[in-house]
């Protein structure tokens, strides 16, 4: 019998023939990897053929739940989508939220893994009786939200769907998978699903799952709920993540015009403080969440949309665009097409700089031009014109364009950088360089340390290494439990408190020390997968621009991140993680990962 909160099995469905089988998930595996991104990493080790093309039929695409899903614990209705990324060629996981997580798990599985590919556009249905395919010709070409809506009309409201937009259908390497307006956004998982000719995976709850100690879980849920209304989440409740923008501008951490600057003159026009007052329509939240971080703004043309810092950063300052109507429209367009806004904005910003330098012949594509931004997005979604090149992401595009453009292609491991300037956040610089997923702010939350005042954020050193490891470990656990990171500030002793929650749900006699080991195991398992798939030490690095162009900040100080300093921090990270000088684990470490 599985531990509380688990079914002890994954469903492995073959989209090619519609068959499905069950993969047993032993208790020791669940305890070692918990769920979400951790269990997803284990599943990829087990099910992804070595060297598989991420867009090949045999590449697995996993929807992974967690023991917390379905409990009354706030922010627990989350799921991880895990696959080998077509953008990075490495392990990729992305989280999304809401009812799909609950219904998907209550199909009776801790994960749903899709392999194979359909011969025509289809939807994979999963419920208590297993998996089957239905035709989706009428949905092909629709935005994910529209496809989801029509599916529920067709199947019934008890069904929940995760769907792709046109970008995923056309194999854009940073296409998203969406559910209920939330996106498993990074790394091109939508292209993986599109390559399987799956418009959506739809799930229907069929059973229940009990926690080991329901009374303890309920008590913990009440406590967490109360704490979720406190000061640690005020920012998310009151203004949402867009509150970062003006603050980041004030401290020179707002990447602007493809990382040519760290402050943006147009930032005040995009500030949450004003946009909220003028545009805010309502607030929303995911299922099972008491924070309610989603701030819905009115956009041009009567549309309403969720606004997040990363959307606005990537399509605003990064591209030099300051008109809020343009930025909101571009963000809405990304949602319609099913594009990761960060990679879309980063790739377009790189292309804008290429145009300035005469490396790309597209005179219409200029920094600050909202119309050009919209045209670029449309061409990417259609893979037409310049979009054919830009749909590949900045790394591949730079390799094609040449002319030194790789030096300012804003990516790590092929994934475009989020809105945190590494030169003025040097713990974050390390986190971005070494993270398994690539340039990513959700698997490495080292920005938190840079903004804590505990170290000089412009002078990376040993303390920055320790901070990057600590925040990476915390993220590994939160993303496996899964709990929303916006809740992280309410935990004063996070590993101990998370262990207590996990113990109440599962019945395991676990503690914070074990969860710290779990975190290290998950981080190592991701790295081990990447090594298996061809990762090289040079992949743990930052774009040349960030290491060769100092930034003068408002105080007059110059922020410099030299290759030597980054190398020193990476060496420190490797040593602290028990890796060799090339960043590889030894055989003994790998033997403890339960991967074989």
């Amino acid at each position, binding site marked *: 019998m599985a531990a509380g909160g688990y079914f002890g099995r994954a469903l492995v469905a073959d989209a090619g023939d519609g068959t499905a089988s069950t993969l047993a998930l032993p208790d020791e595996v669940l305890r070692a990897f918990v769920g979400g991104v951790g269990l997803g990493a284990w599943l990829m080790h087990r099910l992804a053929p070595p060297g598989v093309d991420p867009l090949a039929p045999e590449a697995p695409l996993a929807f992974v739940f967690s023991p917390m899903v379905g409990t009354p614990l706030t922010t627990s209705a989350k799921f991880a989508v895990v696959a080998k990324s077509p953008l990075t060629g490495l392990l990729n996981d992305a989280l999304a939220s809401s009812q799909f997580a609950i219904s998907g798990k209550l199909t009776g599985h801790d994960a749903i893994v899709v392999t194979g590919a359909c011969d025509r556009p289809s939807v994979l249905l999963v419920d208590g009786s297993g998996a089957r395919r239905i035709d989706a010709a009428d949905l092909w070409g629709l935005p994910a939200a529209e496809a989801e809506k029509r599916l529920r009309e067709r199947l019934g409201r008890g069904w929940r769907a995760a769907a792709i937009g046109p970008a995923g259908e056309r194999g854009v390497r940073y296409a998203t998978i969406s559910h209920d307006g939330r996106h498993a956004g990074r790394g091109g998982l939508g292209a993986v699903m599109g390559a399987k000719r799956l418009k959506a995976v739809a799930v229907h709850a069929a059973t229940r799952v009990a926690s080991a100690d329901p009374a303890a879980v309920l008590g913990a849920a009440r406590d967490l709920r109360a704490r979720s209304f406190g*000061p640690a989440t005020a*920012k998310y409740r009151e203004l949402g*993540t867009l*509150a970062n923008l003006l*603050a980041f501008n*004030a*401290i020179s951490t707002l990447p602007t015009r493809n990382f040519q600057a760290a402050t943006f003159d147009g930032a005040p026009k995009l500030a949450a403080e004003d946009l909220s007052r003028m545009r805010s329509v309502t607030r929303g939240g995911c299922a099972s969440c008491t924070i309610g971080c989603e701030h819905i703004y009115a956009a041009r043309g009567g549309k309403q949309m969720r606004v997040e810092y990363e959307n606005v950063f990537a399509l605003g300052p990064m591209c030099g665009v300051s008109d809020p109507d343009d930025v909101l429209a571009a963000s809405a367009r990304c949602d319609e097409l099913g594009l990761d806004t960060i990679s879309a904005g980063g790739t377009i910003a790189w292309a804008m700089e290429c145009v300035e330098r005469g490396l790309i012949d597209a005179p219409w594509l200029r920094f600050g031009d909202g119309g050009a931004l919209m045209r670029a997005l449309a061409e990417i979604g259609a893979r037409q014109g310049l979009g054919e090149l830009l749909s590949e992401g900045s790394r591949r595009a730079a390799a094609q364009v040449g002319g030194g453009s790789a030096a300012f292609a804003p990516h790590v491991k092929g994934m475009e950088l989020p809105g945190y300037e590494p030169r003025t956040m040097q713990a974050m610089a390390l986190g971005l360089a070494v993270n398994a997923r690539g340039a990513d702010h959700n698997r490495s939350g080292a920005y938190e340390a840079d903004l804590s005042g505990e170290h000089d954020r412009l002078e990376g050193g040993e303390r920055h290494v320790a901070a990057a490891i600590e925040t990476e470990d915390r993220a590994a656990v939160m993303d496996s439990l899964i709990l929303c990171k916006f809740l*992280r500030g309410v935990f004063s002793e996070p590993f101990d408190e998370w262990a207590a929650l996990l113990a109440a749900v599962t019945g395991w006699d676990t503690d914070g020390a074990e969860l710290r080991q779990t975190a290290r195991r998950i981080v190592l398992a991701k790295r081990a997968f990447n090594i298996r798939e061809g990762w090289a030490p040079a992949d743990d690095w930052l774009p040349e621009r960030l290491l060769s162009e100092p930034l003068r900040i408002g105080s007059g100080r110059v922020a410099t991140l030299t290759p030597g300093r980054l190398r020193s921090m990476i060496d420190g990270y490797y040593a602290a993680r028990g890796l060799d000088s090339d960043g590889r684990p030894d055989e003994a470490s790998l033997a403890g990962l339960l991967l074989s």
Partner: protein
Amino acid sequence: MAASAGIVLAGGRSSRMGTSKAALEWHGSTLLRRVTGVLARVVDGPVVVVRAPGQELPALPAQVDVVEDPREGLGPLQGLAAGLAATADRAEAAFACSTDLPFLHPAFVRRVLRALTDGVDVGLPVALGYPQPLAAAYRTALAPLAERLVAAQRLRPAFLFGECSVVRLDEAALRADPVLAALDPDLDSVININEPADYAAARSRTAPEVTIQRFGALADGHRGPQTIHAATMAGAAAAAGLALGRHVVAALNGDQITRDGEMPLATGDTVSFLAADAGG
């Protein structure tokens, strides 16, 4: 090796003041805490306090080093020699000053340190009618020379200046720095406090004029910059109706982030208050 360190001489007898000047309060901080904090804002190396043997000091941040002047009562050159010796292997230069400079401005420290161009050993301000050896910049390599002079009982700073390369910075030279001219036009940085009347006069002056800005949920309707008077970060936070802590941090002039309420502020500073929960 850092470019510069800070040395604060706290071991004087404070005989005219009648009490330890280091512990005197000024707008919510002690003079020693303030002066060490001003230096810490400028230098990239250590800040070292030189005290008399066994001298009690007010609370200081853990990052501030405290060394003892091995021989009490020999005057500023002895303290300077001890400070230079304590920083010589960690910084190329040091700004050395006394503890009784409530108006010392970071812009003054920067200007004086910049005087140490190639071949220059001492940057010596000459302001308000006097040379200011206790508000001056020194090569730390002068440590052995200073020690030899002390051993030879040649205890006045002038003896040191006679044996090295000194650039004197008169008021015009100091004010030629537009930043310093704007932020400390009267060169109050070198005003020291020797007697109770000096202290009373210093306390009667308002705290530095600074600009505060609240971001995100902390703004609470207070959009845009606001001018206040505050000598410490905690004072600025209080003026903003905030308290620094787990969920609120401050950025000084868009640069360092801190939760340190005792961090000194100076005229012209801008303080940005941010939610510490900055992700997403």
